[in-house]
């Protein structure tokens, strides 16, 4: 800690210094980089493209549903649209979003390392991602797939005559991309911590990423081999999962959900870690019950492996096993609630600053709560009989995945943006788009709870038999439009900030953590001048002093925003 917080805020300008961005400008220096920060930027660009493509598919789906008569798309086209949306969003956006972008960038710095343990493996992971993404896009261009992202057999193996084979290969490769990232994180967290960085001095984001990585390591290979078996069944017509060939389709569902329920935690656990950072920083308090929040990540990760059967209550799964899975699913609510309560208590008596990242974090808390609590209806077997396969389940997982995963990602992106690129974005536009996202999101997905309760089945593109559902569907589509605007805005003002944004000091939020206190913005290629020695506790905020400083900083920033002064260069 060479400079105090005050000095850093007072004098953000230090002249043009070498950093990881301006170290080299050639294309090759980006495509062959082993720097975890550059790979994070590469990932950010790639997943943004995939997010855009997935959103277009979603737009088609929402547009089609404004009419009860299925006017615009054929059933086949509609099936391909929602499948494209699901596959692209899950495998190519949600799973890599927080770990591969924010985790890659922040995790080594947060524990005081110069890089991940295996930088070349990290680059390989990105290449695997790109190959998989290109394959998947080629699949979509060649006509798409109509199986849904779940690839249920025997539809995917024997019946569907769409491009399932290629999609399976793409998903398989994408799986290895995330395995490599997980492998890297595990080794890094175990072995690369700076002197003095004990397990209980690690930021909660690192805890979350570590738990996620374990889930990736233990779950992804299972789905990889399962998809491979579907592939073999499709290509060679060997019989594993299809009843026509003597196999058992429920076995596929077991093996698929053994990964795919934990995959939900792959998407949400790192986001939970992100908002833990945000709550601590913008309440100027240590996260209440730090140890409990840390262990609840591991608790969720391990319990999450024992609940997959709640997706199969209506398959021919044994009723008795269903009871056990139902009970275990309820138990996962405990560690999740531990987190939610501790975040709430962190806010209590903290000095809360409603910055853009904090608005995202608060939105996360509310929406994740709704998503989590509606999950309990689906975890109990009798209500699930009515609700499964309806829009209730669609609304539920969007509340968790979008309201949790994506908002966590956006919050983290806005939080670490100054660190990544050394520039502040417009706080006004940031807050505005966060609010638009929040409002649009609720308008999109809350009506879907209603629809699900009324019994509208998912994956239907016409509901002429119940035209009274149109009201909610139109409401949802209108909300989706607003949501789309909210997601599009950051693309503009964040990009603009790269050129016009005010230069950020090393620690514009006055946050605690090695990446803020010991590294420049943007950091040098080696992250730190010298490896920091950690002596203090984590989240060691001094609420009074910090809040005075950050308020001054933000006021200053807002004044500049209002005066439309171009940032200093």
């Amino acid at each position, binding site marked *: 800690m060479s400079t105090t917080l005050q000095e850093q805020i007072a004098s953000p300008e230090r002249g043009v210094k070498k950093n990881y961005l301006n170290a080299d400008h050639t294309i090759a220096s980006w495509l062959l980089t082993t720097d975890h920060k550059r790979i994070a930027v590469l990932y950010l660009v790639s997943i943004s493209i995939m997010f855009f493509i997935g959103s277009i598919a979603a737009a088609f789906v929402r547009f089609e549903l404004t009419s009860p008569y299925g006017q615009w798309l054929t059933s086949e086209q509609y099936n391909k649209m929602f499948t494209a949306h699901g596959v692209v969003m899950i495998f190519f956006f949600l799973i890599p979003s927080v770990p591969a972008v924010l985790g890659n960038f922040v995790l080594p710095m947060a524990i005081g390392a110069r890089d991940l343990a295996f930088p070349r493996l990290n680059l390989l992971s990105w290449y695997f991602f790109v190959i998989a993404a290109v394959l998947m896009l080629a699949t979509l261009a060649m006509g798409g797939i109509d199986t849904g992202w779940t690839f249920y057999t025997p539809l995917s193996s024997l019946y569907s005559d769409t491009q399932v084979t290629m999609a399976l290969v793409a998903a398989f490769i994408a799986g290895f991309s995330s395995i490599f990232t997980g492998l890297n994180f595990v080794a890094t967290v175990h072995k690369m911590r700076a002197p003095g960085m004990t397990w209980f001095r690690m930021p909660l984001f690192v805890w979350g990423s570590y738990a996620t990585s374990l889930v990736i390591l233990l779950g992804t290979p299972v789905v990889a081999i399962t998809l491979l078996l579907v592939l073999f069944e499709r290509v060679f017509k060997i019989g594993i999962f299809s009843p026509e060939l003597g196999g058992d389709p429920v*076995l596929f569902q077991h093996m698929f959900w053994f990964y795919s329920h934990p995959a939900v935690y792959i998407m949400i656990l790192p986001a939970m870690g992100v908002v833990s950072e945000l709550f601590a920083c913008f309440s100027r308090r240590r996260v209440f019950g730090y140890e409990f929040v840390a262990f609840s990540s591991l608790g969720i990760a391990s319990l999450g492996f024992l609940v997959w059967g709640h997706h199969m209550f209506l398959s021919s799964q044994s009723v008795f096993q269903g009871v056990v899975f139902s009970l275990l699913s309820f138990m996962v609510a405990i560690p999740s609630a531990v987190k939610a309560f501790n975040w709430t208590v962190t806010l209590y008596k903290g000095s809360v600053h409603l910055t853009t990242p904090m608005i995202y974090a608060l939105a996360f808390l509310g929406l994740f709560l709704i998503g989590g609590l509606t999950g309990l209806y689906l975890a109990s077997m009798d209500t699930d009989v009515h609700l499964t396969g309806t829009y209730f389940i669609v609304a539920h997982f969007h509340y968790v995945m979008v309201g949790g995963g994506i908002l966590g990602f956006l919050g983290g992106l806005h939080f670490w943006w100054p660190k990544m690129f050394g520039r502040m974005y417009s706080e006004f536009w940031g807050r505005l788009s966060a609010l638009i996202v929040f409002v649009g999101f609720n308008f999109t997905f809350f009506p879907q709870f209603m629809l699900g309760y009324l019994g509208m089945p998912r994956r239907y593109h016409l509901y002429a038999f119940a035209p009274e559902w149109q009201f909610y569907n139109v409401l949802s589509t209108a909300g989706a439009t607003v949501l789309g605007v909210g997601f599009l805005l950051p693309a503009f003002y964040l990009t603009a900030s790269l050129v016009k944004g005010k230069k950020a000091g090393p620690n514009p939020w006055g946050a605690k953590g090695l990446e803020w206190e010991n590294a420049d913005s943007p950091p040098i290629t080696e992250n730190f001048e010298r490896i920091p020695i950690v002596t203090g506790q984590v989240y060691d905020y001094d609420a009074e002093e910090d809040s005075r400083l950050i308020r001054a900083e933000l006021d200053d920033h807002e004044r500049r925003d209002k005066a439309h002064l171009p940032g200093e260069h």
Partner: protein
Amino acid sequence: MAAHAHAESIEDSVYFQYETLEQQQETYILGMWAFLLTEIMMFGALFLAYTVYRFQYQRDFFIFHEQLDWKLGGLNTVVLLSSSFSMALAVHYHQIKKKAATLWCLAFTNLCAFGFLAIKSIEYGEKFKHHLFPNDSFVWDAALHGGNPEHARIFFSLYFVMTGLHGIHVLIGILVITTLMVLIAKNHRLITDYIPTEMVGLYWHFVDLVWIFLYPLYYLIPK
């Protein structure tokens, strides 16, 4: 990479992200074990599928398994165990810095791996000849052997998938071991200590481990 600039001599070979050599070595070994974790789960899912069908079609599985040659399978087990032993020796010799002995042991391991694949391909050839590969031309002469032809499909599907995936691992092992031998022989800068050999060794022992379970589960099914 800047790290290589001062990694010229064999003695000073710590990548820039590590502080000490010991840290680097331990991290590599840990990374390898974490990778083996994923391998365990990957083969684990296949063993699970096997167990599900074995429980349901126990009698049929006994009938089908008589099509597999337990002598050839046993020979393959011995071959793989020997290769594993010589791999352990290779690590031992590399640890005490005996380069020639290391190379000889690795060569023997590779020889065994080739032998394994050769024997395996003889077995596969037999199955193909009798139309036991479960594709469109699959023929299960039920009248002759008994057993449900559908279950026969499943049995041979699992057999080919599991031994096939294992065979691919052996093939990758051959490539990796050959690369390692070349690098060691050339005193390449990537090989600065015995850790690469140890990592390849861990992988190879894991391949052996899978076969240890595959052999009794396919070739020695009790009645």
